[in-house]
């Protein structure tokens, strides 16, 4: 199986540790991971902000770059959601039926990390060790676009030493929503305040999620509160062993 990492533009530029941890983890599980260097961005921000015409080239480019691989793994429910549920429609909208067919094919081979581990590789215990109190926020697109369900929690429960605590009102959005956080900053901040309040109530030292974008938002709120709670991508916890810790 030729596995390619789709790092996502955000993790590549801003949260490289999440992408590095994905590589570490997959290699520890015995897989060769390729990083097609031409990759850039899935175009989700453009699509969701209404710039679907501008997103066409990004969809085409993404398809060109990853088509040769058997499995494409990304540490982001949101970007995988875009590839799976938006790319085909964008191509069709552009009148490019051939690209639409190729994008639809690629979508079937594109996986969010927890899906890839559980559905494709069939592992729940990835051999991680992480002796901290952790709470998990199920990001909206993982939860409701990809329906990852409890897969991330099953992976976390198998981590040695972890003290996993339930997040109250976990399924409520953190208020990020891409450009929503800028266009409706007040509402977004009100949603974030409730989310950080719930996180602090758990007494967790670490909040984790499958999306660097939502973690950037939640982490930004926790940092502003000087809370000391650390945001860590799911991949970073799953990659941690007793010898290497994030």
């Amino acid at each position: 199986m030729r596995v390619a990492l789709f790092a996502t533009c955000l993790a590549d530029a801003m949260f490289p540790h999440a992408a590095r941890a994905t590589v570490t983890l997959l290699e520890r599980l015995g897989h060769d991971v390729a990083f097609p260097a031409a990759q850039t961005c899935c175009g989700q921000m453009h699509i969701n902000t209404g710039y679907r015409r501008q997103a066409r080239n990004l969809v085409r480019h993404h398809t060109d770059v990853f088509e040769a691989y058997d499995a494409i793994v990304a540490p982001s429910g949101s970007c995988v959601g875009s590839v799976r549920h938006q790319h085909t429609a964008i191509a069709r909208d552009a009148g490019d039926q051939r690209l639409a067919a190729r994008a639809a094919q690629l979508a079937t081979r594109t996986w969010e990390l927890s899906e890839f581990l559980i559905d494709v590789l069939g592992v729940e215990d990835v051999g991680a060790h992480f002796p901290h109190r952790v709470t998990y926020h199920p990001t909206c697109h993982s939860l409701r676009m990809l329906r990852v369900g409890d897969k991330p929690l099953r992976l976390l429960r198998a981590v040695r030493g972890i003290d996993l605590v339930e997040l109250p009102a976990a399924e409520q959005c953190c208020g990020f929503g891409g450009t929503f956080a800028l266009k409706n900053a007040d509402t977004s901040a009100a949603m974030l305040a409730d989310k950080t309040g719930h996180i602090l109530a758990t007494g967790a030292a670490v909040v984790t999620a499958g999306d660097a974008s939502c973690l950037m938002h939640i982490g930004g709120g926790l940092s502003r509160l000087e809370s000391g709670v650390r945001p860590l991508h799911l991949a970073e916890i799953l990659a941690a062993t007793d010898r290497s810790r994030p």
Partner: protein
Amino acid sequence: MTSTFLGMPHAPRGVGQLRGDEPFPAAAHKALADRQLRRNLGHATATIRGKRARAVAELADWEQLRQAGEAIKAATMARLDEHLLSLEAAVTARGGHVHWARDAVEANRIVTDLVRATGATEVVKVKSMATQEIGLNEALAAAGITAVETDLAELIVQLGHDKPSHILVPAIHRNRTEIRDIFLRHMPGVDPDLTDEPRRLAMAARAHLRAKFLTAKVAVSGANFAVAETGTVTVVESEGNGRMCLTLPDTLITVMGIEKVVPTWTDLEVFLQLLPRSSTGERMNPYTSTWTGVTAGDGPQEFHLVLLDNGRTAVLADSAGRSALHCIRCSACLNVCPVYERTGGHAYGSVYPGPIGAILSPQLTGIEDNASLPYASSLCGACYDVCPVRIDIPSILVHLRGEHVEARERGLLPSAEGLAMAVAAWAMAAPRRFRFAERLLRLGRLLGRSGRIRRLPPPLSAWTAARDLPAPPAQTFRQWWRTRPGDGTR
């Protein structure tokens, strides 16, 4: 002869309530500052969410029911014209009168003329979204006719000179102390010792309304459904006040959006299961009234059905947005929406608030009149999950954002955002340009103090007003990757 399709007409400006006075973010800003409002809303939506979840969990075939609801609506919309003509024929055959209203102005004129012809100066009303949409009460008032709302929550809103903020629970933004104060101030002849005990409040409203029911000559209602095969109109409600309006007066005038028609009673059965569980979290709503034309010696002897377009055919014309017309107004999407829960309904400016309002109002009015609404969502998808007719609200929101951006581009109005998006798309479509952009981004490190950025210039100040941003890392992922010993793909 050639002709150019200019699109179907939208709901006209200057009448009714489909447009707000200010864009959503500005209205939301004010609502968010009202702590009492946020408490009332948070409490009410959480309670009703829980009730709905329990009622839905009781049915093993809930998903199949939703799929049936979606399929029936889609099939009905595909032949809407035929179903409406069948409905008209059936209603007429049973002694009713059918009127076609192109828009709010026409509908208001039809209803006003009908009331005038009876000589009545007061009408009782069953809670109805359609008549709020067209501003019927205001139109009647201008003709010297008083419309009395008889739904308890609508009455609270009307007496308080307020606007409804929820489809199903119009006074959801009020708590009972506020309601008592409104009654004391505005309800004629109310007991001055009224307490805020729910039972006492209900009894006060009951005494007030009974007098109205017993004297009213004309009632105005909306409709939840109309069955085309028999011409039967349906209203579902909880209080029984609707039933009073529908049966006691001599004349009944029903204003119904054209999308409310269902072909058969078998179809109706599906919606009568979906609606109460989704809206009030009940297995069945307390009152379901159905009537077919006129029945001699029983109920109103004159029945008028006004079929309202007001932008609906324009919605129908857009294949990507038309499923917004499938809405059965259950309000489940409002109750789960994290945005609605914090801002309340008034921020949406239209009689249709929440997620459904964010996709319906801009389509009824044309995108330029409600341009901020499609952005009033984080696209979290909670609405889609609960919608009993499976309207993919997030996808329609994204579609309408696209329509808005393209309308702006057609207007040749350059915007800073458009420029930024164009540059970003250009940079990201080629790896070399992308790497260069990443290098520029790293200049952001200069703004950081101990790894975080606390203040940025506009428009990014909207972010840093409430949250920090991490400073860009010293090394991007792809730079790290190149430092690894490896094979050709690396």
